[in-house]
């Protein structure tokens, strides 16, 4: 077994208090991996950790665990995203043990989008555990027990993350995000990546509240690269929990050079939030090759 108790690169960066950059790879729909290999190469010198999405948007694809294993083989530090949508507690615990054996240390626990948002709306939504319970399950495994209380032959060890939405738009939704964030920390979350933010003020207000609650877990601000006004409108309409303000949509509309505007918007947002958080999580959605230009602006 690979030595999985050793700290990951991403974990060390956060521990040393360096401004962390994580990026994201979405596995392909099919058995061809050249595209993600190329994306991974673009990220090699800019990302401290690379999230691998778990059937993102409820679309059937190559698996997160296998893709994490590939990244590891290519000398990169993967962050294994695990959602509760497709697996019950047996399969979730089993996949976590598999990750451990493959030397994958970073795990991000999520609820997962609902099945009807994806390309198999007929599929049964599992949600046997929720994201807080998934973190609890990981904690149990680390203590050498499965959820039924049975002993494991060897304990795994993970660097555990979770997600929070700073832009929840009703009182109930916002308060529930804070309450759930604290529950996640109680169950072992060691870092947070946020849902995509497009408004630095919303993020700062969220952080003010987080400080008031004495939450000191490192938070990475989520940044999605905006490729076009069409994409912004699409996300506003169809992507749960993401909202692009009108001025940014207008900015995209008003330019021919979408790439430069994309870099400008992302860099501007990062510049604004940088003093307040532990790092950024950049989701490029195919534009990985433009991330170095953004990172160069602050590193």
């Amino acid at each position, binding site marked *: 077994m690979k030595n999985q108790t050793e700290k990951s690169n991403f974990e060390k960066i956060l521990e040393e208090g360096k401004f962390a950059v994580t990026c994201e790879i979405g596995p392909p729909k099919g058995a061809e991996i050249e595209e993600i290999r190329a994306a991974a190469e673009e990220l090699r010198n800019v990302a401290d950790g690379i999230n691998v999405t778990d059937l993102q948007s409820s679309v059937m694809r190559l698996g997160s665990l296998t893709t994490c294993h590939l990244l590891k083989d290519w000398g990169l530090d993967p962050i294994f995203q695990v959602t*509760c*949508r497709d697996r019950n*507690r047996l399969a979730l615990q089993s996949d976590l043990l598999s990750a451990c054996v493959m030397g994958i240390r970073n795990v991000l626990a999520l*609820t*997962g*989008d*609902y099945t*009807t*948002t994806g390309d198999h709306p007929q599929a049964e*939504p599992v*949600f*046997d*555990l*929720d*994201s*807080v*319970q998934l973190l*609890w399950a990981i904690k149990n495994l680390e203590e050498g027990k499965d*959820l039924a209380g049975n002993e494991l032959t060897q304990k795994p060890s993970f660097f555990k993350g979770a*997600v*929070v*939405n700073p832009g*929840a*738009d*009703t*009182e*109930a*939704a916002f*308060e*529930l*995000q804070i*309450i*759930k964030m*604290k*529950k996640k920390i*109680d*169950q072992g979350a060691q870092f947070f990546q946020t*849902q995509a933010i497009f408004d630095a003020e919303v993020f700062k207000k969220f952080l003010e509240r987080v400080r008031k609650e004495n939450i000191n877990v490192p938070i990475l601000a989520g940044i999605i690269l905006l490729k076009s006004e069409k994409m912004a409108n699409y996300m506003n309409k169809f992507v*749960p*929990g993401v*909202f692009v303000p009108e001025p940014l949509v207008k900015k995209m509309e008003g330019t021919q050079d979408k790439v430069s505007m994309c870099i400008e918007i992302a860099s501007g947002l990062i510049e604004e939030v940088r003093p307040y958080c532990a790092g950024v999580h950049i989701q490029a959605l195919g534009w990985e090759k433009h991330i170095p230009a953004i990172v160069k602006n602050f590193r």
Partner: protein
Amino acid sequence: MVLTEFKPVEELLIKLKDEKKIFILGCGGCTEGANTGGKAVLASTKEKLENEGKIVTGVMEIDFLCQKALIRARIKPVLDEIKNAESILVFSCGIGVQSTSAVLVKVCHPALNTITFGGITGTWQGTERCDTCGDCILDYTGGICPYTACPKKLENGACAGQSNGKCETDPERDCGWELIYKSLKKMNKLDILNKFIPPRDYSKILPSPALGKTRLWALDEEEII
């Protein structure tokens, strides 16, 4: 008929741990048929609670608790006793607990687990839905069932998919957790949300073959040829 079974007494005492004054409310509908309700059950529960040092501010039976209009009509004589109590211990199916919570704006502890709808769902006519999961946690969720009000069956709070209080699955559907939050806020019990709820015990969801039969099982199985 809705079939229910008693929650273990230990579980009830944990639920009532921090409370002194309790009102007992029983459904005179299906629970009597399932032997989980009726005047004798309510009286012996009162005695048990008093032996544990609790003050029972009142006991009442209403048939049927799934009828919100009936609760409103019948509850008036005991409103002071209910106001005087910190919570209500409810002997009914999950729908009765939900409708009681909604009408009385008070934490309602389910005293029973709902096992199965044996054919007819009481006289229920409202929007409440019970999953007959056999592991009722309605007192932790403001009397709104997280298993039927939230498509993801989340137990520890909303996901990030809600928008303006609506669910990511359908802009017409209320976010179940938005409703749970508002209900607990109305009860002045938001602190309940800080409690970690462990995963549901799905081994309880499958009723025993005897309980799973319909009310008409004898006729169903009669050999006529």
